[in-house]
């Protein structure tokens, strides 16, 4: 019982980073009705830039953080211009296919620029573990949860309490109506892409700083985690992305503890399979009309 609770706690910390990745996917999918599978690799570019800045000038975590945000933003804008802004809105498949091409390009570019492949990333400042009723909350996890919580709070305020957020939600509901309601649809779509990049960069930063290193395969990993969490939660729903991310983190932690690392992926994809069959709208999808619209 204690193990179960401990695993759940560890899982929530990992899951909060997955949730941020899923939210990044969801923002882009919700507003554009298109999937950006180069999302993970764009973040990976940012994290590598952070690692490089740190190695070059001993910039530490703060310098690496700034470089990570800048790198993820620039890489995302590159993807947006080539795979989304340049391709008409009704050609969703063309955008996805070309974002796959850019994924390969970004991954190979980083692999060539960093022949050592795996590169050190500055770690989180050490924080004491907290113990209560036999459970251990790790210092790293406290930081991860705090940062993810702040990011989610700010995002929530932006989406549900600002005019820009209202325009985003309007665009997600009906692009045609938004265009004739004084919404600059191209601008809102572009800024949504940037917002997703920043949210994803927070996740990439937390994961790389916890691990203390990053490899070019991080892009693949981030895309898969984000997509799986988004699909478990429900396509196009922000609340679903949050729930899906946390569920993914918890299930992974439990599976790893009880069944071992080898079984972890089997359990995760088994869960995804079950979700797609039993809950096609995801954990939260059925309640929001936005999730009912098809790709």
């Amino acid at each position, binding site marked *: 019982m204690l193990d179960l609770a401990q695993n759940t706690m560890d899982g929530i910390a990992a899951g909060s980073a997955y949730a941020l990745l899923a939210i990044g996917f969801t923002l882009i999918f919700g507003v554009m009705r298109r999937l950006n599978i180069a999302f993970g690799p764009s973040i990976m570019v940012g994290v590598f830039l952070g690692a490089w800045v740190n190695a070059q000038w001993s910039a530490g975590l703060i310098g690496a953080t700034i470089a990570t945000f800048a790198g993820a933003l620039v890489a995302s804008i590159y993807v947006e211009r080539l795979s989304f802004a340049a391709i008409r809105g009704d050609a969703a498949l063309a955008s996805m296919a070309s974002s796959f091409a850019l994924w390969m390009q970004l991954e190979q570019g980083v692999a060539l620029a960093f022949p050592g492949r795996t590169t050190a990333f500055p770690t989180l400042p050490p924080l004491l573990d907290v113990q209560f009723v036999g459970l251990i909350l790790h210092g790293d996890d406290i930081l991860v949860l705090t940062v993810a919580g702040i990011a989610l709070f700010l995002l929530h*305020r932006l989406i549900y309490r600002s005019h820009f957020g209202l325009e985003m939600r309007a665009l997600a509901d009906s692009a045609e*109506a938004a265009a004739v309601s004084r919404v600059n649809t191209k601008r809102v779509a572009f800024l949504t892409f940037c917002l997703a990049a920043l949210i994803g960069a927070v996740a990439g930063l937390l994961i790389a700083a916890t691990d203390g290193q990053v490899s070019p395969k991080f892009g693949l990993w981030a895309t898969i985690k984000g997509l799986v969490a988004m699909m478990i939660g429900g396509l196009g729903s922000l609340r679903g992305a949050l729930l899906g991310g946390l569920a993914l983190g918890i299930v992974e932690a439990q599976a790893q503890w009880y069944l071992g690392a080898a079984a972890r992926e089997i359990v995760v994809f088994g869960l995804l399979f079950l979700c797609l069959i039993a809950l096609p709208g995801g954990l939260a999808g059925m309640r929001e009309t936005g999730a009912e619209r098809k790709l």
Partner: protein
Amino acid sequence: MLTLENLSKHFGGVRAVDGVTLTIREGEIFGLIGPNGSGKSTTVNLITGLYTPTTGTVTLDGWDLTAMPQHARTSRGVARTFQNIRLFGNLTVAQNLWVAQNGHEQRREHFLSRWFKPGGEHGASVDELLQFSRLYSKRDVLAGNLSFGEMRRLEMARALASNPRVLLLDEPAAGASQEDGQLLAERIRAVRDRGVTVLLIEHMMELVMGITDRIAVLNFGQKIAEGTPREIQDDPQVRAAYLGSGHDEKMERASA
């Protein structure tokens, strides 16, 4: 006021709109009619900017709109409704209007907003528009949960929230009964009395003949007639265009 000059839109070999020239005067209710496929909806899409014209220009109060994107035209004063209603179904009724208002009133209620939107001219207040559209009691209901009639009224209210000079109504009577048609006529007049010029695209002849000041008729993308409802009903070319298309009978009834 709203002027179309030699406006054309060709889709491959199809001339959906072919050299239409029209002037809509300030404060009038102008009807645009024609058989199915005559180019009415394409004309609306050219005015609002969904399509770029093959040739010709669209000007409003002397401003050339032809190269402007849709949202800029709406800011200049062109608003529209859709034949198939387009609402923000996951937003509340009031939020639907806030979007079109460009954040004038919302800013008071929410922090951060001022960072994203500069101030600007102010149209009618959301509450006033909701009362005008008999939707005030539904203020905080999600637009997707409204009845069909309420959705139509909300769509028109949202168009008015953008503070338009001219409102394009694309078949607002589609799916409405005879009695609804009467109410709709009253509401269109009320919109005009607010100082908004109305361009009405409609199949329902009784409605068009009853409330418009002037009418233009399209057929195969070309304007074949323009004039008062009386002149249009007596026009032999118009009668020929409608012959056999099922509207002839309606024309007779409307003129009787």
